[in-house]
C-alpha cells in the first residue's frame, strides 16, 4: 500500500518536471526572441530613416536585410520602428482593457443589479464584431494614436471581464471565504488576502492574451487607414503601403514586416498560454 502510493507519487513528479522543463524551454525561447527584438528596436530607434533615391527598390541583401522601398528607405529599420510603436500601443491598450475588465468583473460580482447591467454590457460588446466597433470608436475619437488606443482598450475587455466575474462569484460562495467572514474579517480584508491571490493569475494570463489581439487589431485598423497617421512608422502603415507595390514584384515589402508582426504576436500568445498552464491549480503546486 505504502509502496504503491510511493510509485504513484514519483510517477507524478517526473511527468510534472518534464512538463515544467517544457514550459521553461518555451518561455526561454520566447524571452530570447523578445530580447532580440528589444535590442533590434533599441538599435533602430537611434537610426534615422534616410531617403536615398539611388538605393530604391533593392531586394534583401547583406547590407539591407529586409530590402529597401520605393524611396530607398531601409525596411529593417522601418519594420523595427513600426513594431515598436505597434507593441507600445498594443501593450498600453491591453493593460487598459484588463483594468476595465477587472473593474467591471468585480463590480458585477458585488450585487444583483450591478451584475445585470454588467452582463448586459458584456453581451452587447461580444455580440458586435470587434473590428467594426473598433473602427467606429477610433473614428469618433479622431483616429491617431489616441483613437486606436481607446478603440482597442474599449473593445477587448468583455471576455476577461466575464472570467473575472465568474471567478469572483465563485469565490464569494467558497466555504473558506464564508468561514473567513465568521472569523471576523471584513470584505476588504478578504478581498485583499483571499480573493486577489486567486484572481491574480487569471488577470495576468488574461492581460497577456489580450495583448496579441490588441497588437493585431491596432495593425489592422491602421492598415485600413482608420488608425495611426501615415507619417508614423506603424506596421499597419507599412503593410498598407506595400500593397501598392506587391504587384510589381516587390514581395519583401510585405513579407518581412508581416512575418515580424506574426512572430511578435505569437510570442505574447505563447507566453500567455504557458503561464495559463502554469497557474492551473490542478497542475501547478505553487
Amino acid at each position: 500500500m505504502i509502496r504503491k502510493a510511493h510509485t504513484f507519487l514519483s510517477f507524478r513528479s517526473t511527468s510534472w518536471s518534464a512538463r515544467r522543463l517544457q514550459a521553461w524551454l518555451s518561455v526561454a525561447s520566447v524571452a530570447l526572441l523578445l530580447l532580440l527584438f528589444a535590442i533590434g528596436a533599441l538599435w533602430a530607434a537611434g537610426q534615422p530613416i534616410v531617403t536615398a533615391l539611388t538605393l530604391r527598390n533593392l531586394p534583401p541583401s547583406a547590407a539591407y536585410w529586409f530590402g529597401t522601398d520605393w524611396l530607398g528607405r531601409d525596411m529593417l529599420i522601418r519594420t523595427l520602428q513600426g513594431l515598436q510603436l505597434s507593441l507600445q500601443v498594443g501593450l498600453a491598450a491591453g493593460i487598459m482593457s484588463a483594468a476595465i475588465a477587472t473593474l467591471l468583473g468585480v463590480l458585477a460580482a458585488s450585487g444583483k443589479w450591478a451584475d445585470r447591467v454588467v452582463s448586459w454590457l458584456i453581451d452587447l460588446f461580444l455580440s458586435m464584431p470587434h473590428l467594426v466597433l473598433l473602427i467606429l470608436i477610433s473614428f469618433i475619437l479622431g483616429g491617431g494614436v489616441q483613437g486606436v488606443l481607446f478603440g482597442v482598450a474599449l473593445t477587448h475587455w468583455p471576455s476577461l471581464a466575464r472570467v473575472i466575474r465568474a471567478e469572483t462569484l465563485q469565490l464569494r460562495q467558497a466555504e473558506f471565504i464564508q468561514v473567513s467572514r465568521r472569523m471576523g474579517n471584513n470584505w476588504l480584508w478578504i478581498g485583499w488576502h483571499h480573493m486577489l491571490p486567486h484572481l491574480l493569475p487569471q488577470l495576468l494570463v488574461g492581460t497577456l492574451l489580450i495583448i496579441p489581439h490588441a497588437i493585431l487589431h491596432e495593425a489592422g485598423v491602421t492598415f485600413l487607414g482608420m488608425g495611426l497617421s501615415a507619417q508614423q512608422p506603424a506596421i499597419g502603415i507599412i503593410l498598407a503601403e506595400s500593397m501598392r507595390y506587391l504587384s510589381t514584384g516587390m514581395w519583401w515589402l510585405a513579407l518581412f514586416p508581416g512575418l515580424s508582426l506574426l512572430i511578435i504576436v505569437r510570442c505574447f500568445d505563447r507566453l500567455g498560454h504557458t503561464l495559463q498552464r502554469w497557474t492551473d491549480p490542478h497542475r501547478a503546486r505553487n
Partner: protein
Amino acid sequence: MLLEARDVSFRYDRREDWLLQRANLRIEAGEIVGLTGPSGIGKSTLARLLAGYRKPQQGEVRLAGKPLPSSGYQPVQLVLQHPEKAVNPRWRIRRILREGWQVDAELRHMLGIAEQWLDRWPNELSGGELQRICVARALGPGTQFLLADEMTTMLDAVTQAQIWNAVCEIAEARRMGMLVISHDAHLLGRLCNRIVDIDTI
C-alpha cells in the same frame, strides 16, 4: 446563554417549497444536542442559519435573546464536513490557524496537530489532519457555541475519537454549547445530552 431558532422558515429559491418551516431549536450553554434525520431535509441548512451563514426568510435566530452580531468574530462557529473546502488552498497551515485567533500550543497538542504540519500547504495534509486544523480554528476564546455538521463523518474511528475527546473536554471546561449533526446514532448516543429529530422541530 442560550442559542435558539424561533419559528424559522427557509427556502433557497422563491419557486421552491419550504425546506424548513417554523422550526424551533434551543441549545443551552454547556449542553450537547444531537440532530438527526434523513438526508436533504434541512439539517445542514438549520446549522447554517444558526451560524449566520444565511438569514431565514421568516422567524429569527437569537443568541442570548439578541440577534447574531453582524461583524467581528462570531460566537457561533460552524465546522463543516469537508475541511479541504473550508481552507484557502493557497495559504500555509500556520496562516490558516492564525486567521481567527492565535491557536495556542495546548489546543494544538489536544487535537494532535503536529508542529511540522504548520509549514505545509493544505493539499499536503490528509482529511483528518486538515479537519483538526479547522476544529482548532473554530475554537477561539470567543466561541460560545460550536455547530458540528457531519464533522467527523469522513474520518476513521481513531481520528474521530481523538477529535471528539478534545472538543468535549474544551466544551465542558468553557461551558460551550454544541450541536452535533450526524447520521451515526451510536456517536450521538455517546456524545449528546439529548437527541432531536429534524422532523419534530
